[in-house]
């Protein structure tokens, strides 16, 4: 059964490997040049004692091509979901190859488990390799700009892309099992993925853990939260029991970065499991 899955997917596996190789080549080349630029910058600012305000005065562009690819990596999970997840069952139903597969000695349950298992593993590898490359590439930028916790940057580094890729693929598989049409499943994957990602990133993520709130005198026109923190809101509050207002900044400290990565990945993997359970019920209970 595993051999069958490999033979079904070897062309897609080859294309995915070529894409990952090209992606890695661009990121490694531009990343090495950015790392040496960062090294030069550090030497320069150490000599002149200006490393404290490096972030305000210097920019680390990396190259345009590297930056484009890093942004495009945000779309990689949904591409896998659309092109591998959605057709996984839908195309079998459309081409009626399920009629043949289910007439063999392999049970429907085993057929589904092996196919889905290998594909989800591939999705996790796809998301993980992209994320590892982007995380390495972003190292100097994370250090200079201290922005690893900010929206969009958070979404393409660490382990969350693995969760996104597994979820997008499971969504494509479940949509294919329910609708039995490839194009409809692709549309559901695209819409569902974008909708959920926006909803969680904008409305849910700021509340994973309690925030830290700092109050400061409004005479200090600006307040800088600790390095690499994620400011979720700021403004002015009236002080109860006395006249005058205070400024406040509510933020998630940098120490919450990895717990947040873990929580977000967990949410997406849990949703993927629910979708797989639905798929399992639909496929095993449906008449051939």
């Amino acid at each position, binding site marked *: 059964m595993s051999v069958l899955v490999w033979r079904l997917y070897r062309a897609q596996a080859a294309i995915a490997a070529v894409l990952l190789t090209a992606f890695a080549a661009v990121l490694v080349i531009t990343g090495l040049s950015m790392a040496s630029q960062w090294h030069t910058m550090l*030497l320069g600012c150490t000599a002149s004692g200006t490393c404290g305000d490096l972030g305000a005065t210097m920019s680390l562009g990396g190259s345009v091509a590297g930056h*484009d690819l890093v942004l495009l990596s945000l779309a990689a999970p949904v591409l896998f979901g*659309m092109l591998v997840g959605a057709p996984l069952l839908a195309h079998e139903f459309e081409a009626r190859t399920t009629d043949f597969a289910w007439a063999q000695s392999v049970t429907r349950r085993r057929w589904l488990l092996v196919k889905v298992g290998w594909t989800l593993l591939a999705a996790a590898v796809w998301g993980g390799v992209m994320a590892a490359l982007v995380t390495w590439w972003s190292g100097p930028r994370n250090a200079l700009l201290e922005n690893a916790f900010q929206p969009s940057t958070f979404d393409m580094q660490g382990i969350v892309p693995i969760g996104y890729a597994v979820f997008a693929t499971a969504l494509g598989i479940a949509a294919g099992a329910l609708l039995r049409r490839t194009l409809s499943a692709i549309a559901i994957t695209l819409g569902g993925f974008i909708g959920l990602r926006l909803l969680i990133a904008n409305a849910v993520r700021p509340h994973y853990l309690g925030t830290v709130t700092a109050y400061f005198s409004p005479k200090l026109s600006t307040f800088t939260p600790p390095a690499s923190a994620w400011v979720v809101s700021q403004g002015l509050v009236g002080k109860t029991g006395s006249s005058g207002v205070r400024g406040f900044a509510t933020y998630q400290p940098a120490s919450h970065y990895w717990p947040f990565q873990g929580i977000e990945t967990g949410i997406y993997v849990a949703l993927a499991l629910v979708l797989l359970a639905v798929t399992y019920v639909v496929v095993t209970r449906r008449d051939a």
Partner: protein
Amino acid sequence: MSFLVWRQYRSQAAFAALVLAVFGAVLIITGLKMASQWHTILSACTASGTCASLHEGQTSLGSVVGHDFAILSMLGPAVFGMLVGAPLLAREYEARTMDFAWAQSVTRTRWLLVKVGWVLLAAAVWGGVLAELVTWWSGPRNAAFQNWFQPNYFDQQGIVPIGYSVFATALGIAAGALFRRTLPAVAIVVGGFIGMRVWLSQDVRAHYMTPVTTYFGVAGNFNPPAGSLQVGSGMTGPNGQVLAQNFNSNVGVFNGVPISSLPHACQSLASQASMSAQNAANRCLAAAGYHSYASYQPASRYWAFQGIETGIYLAVALLLVAVTFYVVRHRDA
């Protein structure tokens, strides 16, 4: 034949209309709110005389949801190309329904012409409606931030989304005709559309027309007029030649130019960090005939650029349609 196309596509048409209705509802609700917010901001800044200093980042305008939808509108053309363009022929080949279609009294050319014609028209309407909604929604932001000529904002307003949408759909149709498989055609639309869009907007758009260049003193400060698209800046030497810049280092660089390429007399001043030495280096360079320059595309060229970019995408789409006709007509059934 037109009636057949309608029957084939009525569920997709209903679905697209529904998506557009939701999109329109969100943009109209958030847009009206933003328009009244803009009105309040204008009243306040007129009263305090600070209207000149409204900037993106300092002034928040528009809701997160509306903003998300405006950004998502950039995906609209590719989605149409993937879900309508790519399967147009590929699905017929896969399901072998063209065997039946081509056995009828309608010629293959007419079958293709009517199908492709109506779908491309629908793609243009789809792109146009999305663009008009986003253009209207962005009105207050355009006025406040003068950023409609900047990358990304240019790409979601005006008429260019019509060109993108027709191109993405034509790409899907042509890929479907060549591969005769839906999924590879979908993949080609994603890759081709993103590649073409990124390449054209980053490397080609700035050169549609010769930019306007302004020269000013080495230490001077010049901001291009509001609403223009800056395409270059730096220093020129005594003969007016542009000096190569190096942004990869903050060591051995003066005003972005390697110190080694400056005149010998100014090099030692330029390599010192103190403010007085830097000012002296600026005077030294000015005496040697050096200038700063900024080149930009003025705001008055916005619609010319919109027209040129739309024209390019429509021309490529036409080429793809020609390839499709050639492939379909010359292939054995």
